[in-house]
Each structure stands twice: as C-alpha cells, then as structure tokens.
C-alpha cells in the first residue's frame, strides 16, 4: 500500500510535467522550477547541516567496535576505535567512500534442516553493502556525466569519463554501463523492501518514495537518451541559460525531457527534508566522527553550573589555628 501510494505520487509527477510542458508551461518547467528547486536544495542542505552542528557534543560517543588505544603491546583497532583526528579521518573516509559499517552488516535467519529442528543462523550479509555501493558510485558517475550539459567547452576528462562508461560500445548512442547498473541496483533495493519481511515491516512512504523517485529519474533519463530522444543542443542551451540567468527556453525540447527535469527538480527540493540528507548527515554522525579520547583528554560539560568547592587547602587554612593548637602538623608546611 505504501509502495503503491509512492508509485502513484511519482506517476502523478510524471503526468504533471508531461501535461504542463505540452500545455505551454515550458518556462515553468524549464526555468522557474529548476531555479526554485536548486535554491531549496542549497538553502535546505546548508540549514540542515547548521541545525545539526548547533547540537552540543560535550563528550565523545563513537561506536567502539574494536580495541581502543591502550598499553603499547596491545594492538589498537585504528579505524574501529580511533584515538586521534587522523584516525578519524581514515574511519570517515572508509565510511563515506566504501560504506565500511554496512560491510559489517549481519543477518539473523531461522533455518530448518532435515532431521533437525529450526535453528537460528547468524552470519554476515554483504548483499546490501555491494548493492548500495554500486548504486551510490554509479549515481555519482551519472551526475558528473551530466556536467556536459553545463560546461562549455566540455573538458577532456569529462569526455574520457563518458567514453569509459560507454566502454562496451553497444548500440547508438553508446550504452552507458552505469545506466544498466543503476537500474539494477535500485531495482534490487526496492525488491529488498518487498521480499524481506522484517525490512518490509518498517518501510514507510518516505522509504518507498525516494526509491521510486530515483527510479523515475533514472528511467526517464534512459528514455530521453536511448528511446524518445530530445534535441541535445537545445538541452545544453537551456543549461547555459540557467547558468547565466538568461530566462528563456529554447524550442525543440520535448515533453519527455521536461519530465526528466521535473523529476530531478522534485528530487532536489525533497532532498533536504528526507532520509536522503544522510549524504550530509554522515559527516555529522557523532558515533563515527569523534575520536575515542575520553580517557586521554578531559571533557568538561559546558552547561555545568559552577560548584562551590571547599577544597582541603581552604579547610586547612580556615582551621589552621585550631589544628596547630591541638598539636597536629599542617599539611602545607
């Protein structure tokens, strides 16, 4: 049901862009909405980060998944229990670039074998890690490839990237490997929510909708490139117009291209307010980005009220006369 609602949402977006751009709304879908969406994305993203950054972090709370720095002959797990800033950088780089914590994903499952009762089996599960990794990296490559619509002249490295992506030279225009991989990866991530009953139970509209929206973006992009082609020069002219604040839309960009653009705009505007913000949030995860130096550095709670201490030295000073009269020695002497 939740998946169905999300699907209806995405199809509705497609219909809006299709009908709207056909009915003469090219300026709305080609200029107004892209600017608005991009502005919402930039401001929303920054605002979210600032909001999170304002939360106080007086104490170090990293997940310590390995041996902490201890005596010299005990080997420290540097990336699982970093003690210095540099080790944190290593941990974060592995996390952001290779999804290391997802690599350590585990899974519990009931298995029934012949001659034995049902057993609870517990083991590693790399499938989610590999599919997520494929999705994120292919999506990045696709994003960078799209720079050719905004950069003039197109730099050589961008052409090289495209040529590498089209390495197998199948079909005209050449099939991009990332186009195939991203659809497969998103499909598997969606199927996972249907087939895994535990994941299915906790899946919400806000889980299905981004997945289906991304699938919509990717599929509409594939349609525009391989099947219902659009005027690429017109698209690039629109890109240049957007960059230079020329508020005009070149003719000849079909409705299919506006559908793709509108879905991307929706994604951009939706980004800061959704689970997709993990892109920025991962950098602000206190369980990942803090060094476990709780026993090496003194951390003082900034909102501690000042405590009226009465130290031994003060007490001794206060009763110095009485202590001496009683014949005891004073510590300070």
């Amino acid at each position, binding site marked *: 049901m939740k998946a169905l609602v999300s699907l209806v949402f995405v199809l509705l977006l497609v219909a809006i862009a299709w009908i709207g751009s056909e009915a003469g709304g090219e300026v709305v879908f080609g200029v107004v909405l892209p600017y608005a969406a991009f502005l919402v994305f930039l401001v929303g993203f920054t605002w979210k980060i600032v909001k999170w950054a304002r939360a106080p972090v007086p104490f170090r709370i990293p997940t310590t998944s390995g041996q902490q720095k201890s005596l010299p002959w005990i080997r420290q797990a540097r990336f699982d229990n970093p003690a210095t800033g540099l080790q944190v950088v290593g941990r974060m780089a592995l996390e952001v670039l290779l999804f290391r914590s997802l690599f350590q994903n585990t899974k519990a499952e009931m298995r029934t074998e012949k001659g034995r009762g049902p057993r609870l089996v517990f083991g590693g599960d790399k499938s989610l890690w590999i599919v997520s990794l494929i999705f994120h990296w292919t999506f990045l490559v696709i994003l960078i490839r799209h*720079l050719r619509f905004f*950069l003039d002249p197109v730099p050589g490295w961008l052409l090289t990237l495209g040529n590498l992506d089209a390495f197998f030279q199948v079909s*005209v225009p050449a099939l991009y490997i990332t186009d195939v991989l991203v659809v497969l990866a998103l499909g598997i991530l969606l199927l996972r929510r249907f087939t895994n009953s535990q994941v299915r139970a906790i899946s919400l509209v806000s889980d299905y909708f981004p997945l289906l929206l991304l699938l919509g973006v990717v599929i509409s992009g594939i349609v525009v490139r391989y099947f219902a082609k659009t005027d690429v020069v017109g698209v690039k002219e629109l890109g240049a117009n957007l960059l230079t604040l020329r508020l005009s839309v070149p003719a000849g960009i079909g409705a299919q291209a506006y559908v793709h653009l509108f879905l991307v705009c929706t994604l951009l505007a939706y980004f800061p307010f959704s689970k997709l913000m993990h892109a920025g949030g991962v950098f602000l995860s206190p369980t990942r980005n803090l060094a476990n130096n709780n026993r090496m550095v003194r951390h003082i709670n900034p909102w501690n009220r000042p405590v009226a201490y009465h130290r031994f030295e003060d007490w001794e000073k206060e009763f110095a006369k009485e202590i001496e009269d009683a014949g005891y020695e004073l510590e300070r002497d």
Partner: protein
Amino acid sequence: MYDKGKILAGIALFLVLVLFPVWYGAAQGGPGRPPDLVVGTDAESCVRDTETMRISHMDLLDEWRNRVVRDGVRRDEVSGREMSLTRTCLDCHADREGFCTKCHDYAGVDPDCWDCHNLPEGAGHER
C-alpha cells in the same frame, strides 16, 4: 557550535562543488551559445526532415550501416540516395569540422565514426 571551523569549511566545500559549473563558466568566459554550423549546402532537404536529422541522425547512420553491411542493400528507399556516410552525408556537409565536429564538441559527444571511416581527400571529396 562545536568544531565550527571544520563544519563551515565543509559547507563551503559543498557549495563550491555544487556550484562548480558556475565557476567553470566564469573562468571560461561564460557558456557560449550553440555554434553556428557550416551546413555546406543550399539544398531544400536532407535525406530525412531537419528535425529528425537533428535529433536522431545517429539512429539513421546505425540503420544504414546495418542495411549495407548485413543486408547488402545500398540504396535508401526514402531518399533514393546511397546509404553512405562519406559519399552521401559528406557530399553536402563537406566541412566535417564545421558541421559534425563543431556540434559534437559543443554537446560533449565523442562518436567513433572516424576511427574506421577515412575522410575523403580534397575539399571537394572526389568520389
């Protein structure tokens, strides 16, 4: 705000990266207008109508390649012309640099036509 310097640097880096096309455009003197192509002919029409040629000439070339190489058919039924990149297309659009390359460069397309096809010698493309 804890780690203020690092977080502000991160936000700044994010904004710089996301707005990269703007900086690039500014450094290169702004993204230009679509190039004026040297069509090279006054003929009324191409082998298909202009809109089709503009958007899906690559499909047509692909189809021609298959018809010639696989089916042995050399003449295009629609236009009556020979299905040949170098002899039909370049016959009118003689200035490859000013027509094909200029537009491909602008759009960031890097087709591999000329990996195999030789450009006929001479400006007039003798047959």
